[in-house]
């Protein structure tokens, strides 16, 4: 009976862990995607300062906000995204205009894709 209780506790911990990771992940990824989107839209509307502010916030907050995601998300994808977010302010300051739009979009799509892969949807399960 003790072992069954231990098994139920273990399963409950896994379920709670999954639920917490989904809720926290959704919140953080929504925020990061919003920043990438803001940078992209601001730049397209000619608001370079707004784009730079969003890109810098994204670059500075990404490592902190995704710190715990390394527990369950592929490290390579997280590192790739970190490189992309870190490069956004630099491209805006020193790079070509088209490069920034492309990189901001790439960053947003990578964030969306990575989080989509974590959703417990039927497509992802099978």
């Amino acid at each position, binding site marked *: *009976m003790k*072992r*069954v209780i*231990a*098994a*139920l506790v*273990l*399963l409950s*911990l*896994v379920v709670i*862990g999954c639920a917490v990771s989904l809720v926290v992940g959704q919140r953080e990824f929504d925020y990061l995607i919003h920043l990438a989107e803001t940078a992209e839209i601001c730049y397209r509307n000619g608001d370079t300062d707004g784009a730079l502010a969003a890109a810098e916030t994204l670059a500075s907050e990404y490592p902190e906000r995704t710190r715990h995601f*390394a*527990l*369950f*998300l*592929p*490290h*390579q994808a997280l590192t790739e995204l970190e490189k992309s977010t870190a490069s956004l302010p630099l491209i805006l300051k020193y790079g070509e205009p088209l490069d920034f739009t492309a990189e901001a979009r790439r960053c947003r799509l990578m964030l969306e894709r990575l989080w989509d892969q974590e959703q417990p949807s039927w497509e992802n399960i099978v």
Partner: protein
Amino acid sequence: MAITALRTVIIYIVIIAALRLAGKRQLGELQPGELVVTLLIADLASVPMQDVGIPLLNGLVPIAVLVALELILSALMLKWRWLSRLVSGNPVVIVNDGVLDQKALKRLRLTVEDLMETMRQQEVFDIRDVQYAIVETNGKISLFLKPNAQAATRADVQTLISDKGAPVPIVSDGKLIDWGIAVCGLSANWVEDKLKKRGCALSDVLLMTADKSHKVYIVRREVSS
């Protein structure tokens, strides 16, 4: 490299804990489901151990889920016999009163050679001596011999023997063995008194055994020169 080493330590601890939680049956005679879980645990553990790019939890969570499901399934199988039959199957009689059930043998995809090999391993060479041969749910074949083929026991020859029980260790490497002391119906004080009478300290004892008649045997530690 340090990360790989530390991950290996964590995974090792988790596997030991998982197998301990799964119980002794897991390590001994495996049922089909238990065998699958054991193989899966070994495989799941090796992936995050080798590749540091894969999150550790990707290996640990499936292990936890598998062990938990295995334990819950075991508990349900104890409660519901039909579930046990569904998961583990039933024992099948393949020899009944010396007669081979060829249909059962075919259904189990066992050859006569397999049966004969098992018989030989149990020192049975004539199928006519076998009362029952049963394929257990874990795949092992149990043999029950006809009375005239069985070795005579002391009861058969009506020899009276006193039951002293087998000697069990009560001190090992200078430390008291609680379960051994309990089996012999002794106490730690009794053991210490006995050693004192023999002029021997507990720490000097390499092995001390006792049986139910409280007969002891002591092996002292050799003094290194």
